[in-house]
């Protein structure tokens, strides 16, 4: 392994994308990202995770010192890799943003299926909100509408900027937004105006859902996949009347944050990493879900096995852990 660069791995397993980041601890803060990869999860987190690790292995120049996982698939990924830190994405996003700018006071994060608002004061998270009940105003919706309008998602934002008078689109619910948009198309509105209207309604929806009663102060960071959309950037800036900053590596901030937290944790504890190593590429992972029948609680259990060896399970109320095969518990 000598000659290989020492790095920390951060993995953010989201609903839409799985992001990998390698962080070089010897470089100054914001520039420590030496490698990153953005993969579509496609509903198969185990395969996607392996795919990402394979890409790391093929480079043959990294020596992984520690691993952190975050995102909605953090527990599964954490068990597969035996990660040193498994933490929620809000903490991870805040850590990454603070590292680039310790003064950051507001973080707007819009991902594939959820959106978050994080409020910070003097380097400490003081409040946060996640979209509840409905996913209106997230990346998946924009993605879907872009493909329906036959516009590549990358051009969606710049097209919105061409608009001179954005149409008003009902944005409370994505299904109604879509039918309203079709209606506006059929009335003969121009494409840029419709696209701009869509961006504006998403911004409106985001702020009315998440920013209720919260004070959004400058500096404002906009991160997550949707931050690439210049139309969204403009409408946020116009609505908030504040400059919107897009951090470097805005699309993988969660992974950066969790890699940093992994590093801080390991360094403060002075412990070696528990990471299984890239050997897991040659392992077979199996997961299984069932309703446990050992007591009346009816917990929904998910177990993960590596090459026939039990790794971890989730969902039990009693705290029962460890390799009960389905037949024993049902």
């Amino acid at each position, binding site marked *: 392994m000598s000659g290989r660069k020492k790095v920390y791995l951060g993995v953010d397993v989201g609903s839409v994308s799985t992001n990998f980041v390698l962080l070089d601890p010897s470089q100054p803060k914001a520039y420590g990202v030496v490698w990153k990869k953005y993969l579509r999860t496609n509903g198969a987190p185990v395969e996607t995770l392996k795919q990402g690790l394979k890409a790391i292995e093929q480079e043959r120049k990294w020596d992984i010192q520690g691993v952190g996982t975050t995102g909605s698939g953090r527990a599964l990924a954490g068990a597969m890799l035996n990660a040193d830190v498994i933490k929620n994405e*809000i*903490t991870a996003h805040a850590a990454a943003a603070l590292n680039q700018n310790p003064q950051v006071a507001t973080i707007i994060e819009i991902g594939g299926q959820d959106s978050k608002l994080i409020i910070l004061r003097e380097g400490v998270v003081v409040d946060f909100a996640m979209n509840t009940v409905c996913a209106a105003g997230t990346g998946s919706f924009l993605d879907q509408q872009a493909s329906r309008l036959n516009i590549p998602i990358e051009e969606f934002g710049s097209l919105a900027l061409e608009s001179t008078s954005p149409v008003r689109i009902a944005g409370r619910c994505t299904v109604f937004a879509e039918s309203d948009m079709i209606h506006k198309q059929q009335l003969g509105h121009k494409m840029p105006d419709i696209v701009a209207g869509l961006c504006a309604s998403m911004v409106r929806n985001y702020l009315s859902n998440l920013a209720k*009663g*919260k004070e959004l102060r400058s500096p404002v960071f906009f991160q997550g996949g949707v931050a690439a959309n210049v139309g969204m950037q403009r409408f946020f800036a116009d609505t908030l009347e504040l400059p919107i900053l897009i951090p470097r590596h805005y699309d993988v901030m969660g992974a950066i944050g969790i890699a940093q937290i992994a590093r801080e944790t390991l360094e403060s504890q002075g412990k070696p990493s528990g990471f299984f190593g890239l050997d897991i590429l040659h392992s077979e992972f199996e997961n299984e879900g069932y309703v446990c029948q050992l007591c*009346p609680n009816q917990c929904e259990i998910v177990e993960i096995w590596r090459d026939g060896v039990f790794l971890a399970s989730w969902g*039990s*109320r009693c*705290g029962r852990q460890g390799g009960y095969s389905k037949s024993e518990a049902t």
Partner: protein
Amino acid sequence: MKVTFPHLGNAYIAIEALLQGLGHEPITPPLSTKRTIEWGSRYSPEDICLPFKTILGNMLEGIELGADSVYMLGGWGPCRLGYYAEIQRIILHDLGKKVKFVTLEVPRGNWRMARERLRHIFGPTRTRHFLRGCQLSWAKLRAVEQLEQRSLQARPLEKDHGSTSRLLETQLQKLRMAQNMKTISRIKAETDEALQDLAAATASHAVLRVGLVGEIYTVVESFVNLRLEERLGRLGVEVIRTISLTEWVEEHIFKNALGLYNQYELLRSSRGYLHSFVGGHGLESIARSVEMANAELDGIIHIFPLSCMPEIIAQGILPQLSADKKVPILSLVVDEHAGETGFQTRLEAFVDLLQRRCTYVRKEKSLSRC
């Protein structure tokens, strides 16, 4: 009569004793599960809140076990719950369930109506038997609360994850079987001792203290609130409950019946934020939050079912309270579609927030703990 009733946390232990005192055979429905909610939702109006659906599910599961009567609470005031019994009676009737539906309502000084109601409630019992049932039931309710209270303190310190909850479950079942006051006090003492053994001797880390406010059903029913207290305990948080069943029975039922119930104290606490009764526990949520902020708790969690009017009012006020008192507040909304992942993420993020804030405050004021 074979009487079934809806669940409210572990209150069933006390309700069983009371029903026995009244000369009935209690038919306790199984603790709420996914099946309960699915079944209840199927026959409920879609827009109604989660407690309605779960309660209806409990009734259906109780009837399935052979109950011939259903007891349900009614009430007055802006909260919709007061009207639920009536709707549930009609739904059960429409489903062809041949049961006697008894609504227990606070008579509010209307004693003729009260006497009428009471005639339906009593079964074949003797005065002595009845009084004994009341005594046992009240003692059990207080014991349940004490056991739960102690487990809230013990859980963040436990060595072995889940051991507190397992112990609590065992002790609650013993309590359920207890037939006299002596046994009840023995169980209480035994639990206290056992809980101390579960705590890690080395637990020196400062435990975060978080107050829990909100709508009573979602606060008390652990299945409905996705085991909020257990999750927080596991994250190293001691939960301070502000809603107690015994207090609720005393204040909302007995004092209300005698016309003695007043919100003077609550209104004094909530001064500057809310000046009237808004139904359910809306006023309590605000008043208790103010009290807990003044007591310098690390944070407050506010939980309620989707579409709950009193708590929506409270939710609108809490951000201002949070800013004034400098205490982080997290509002959580639950319904039958609530996802565990998002719920857990919010809790973890909130606890992280509290921990980081705690370290920061500690550094600034050079305190040994927050």
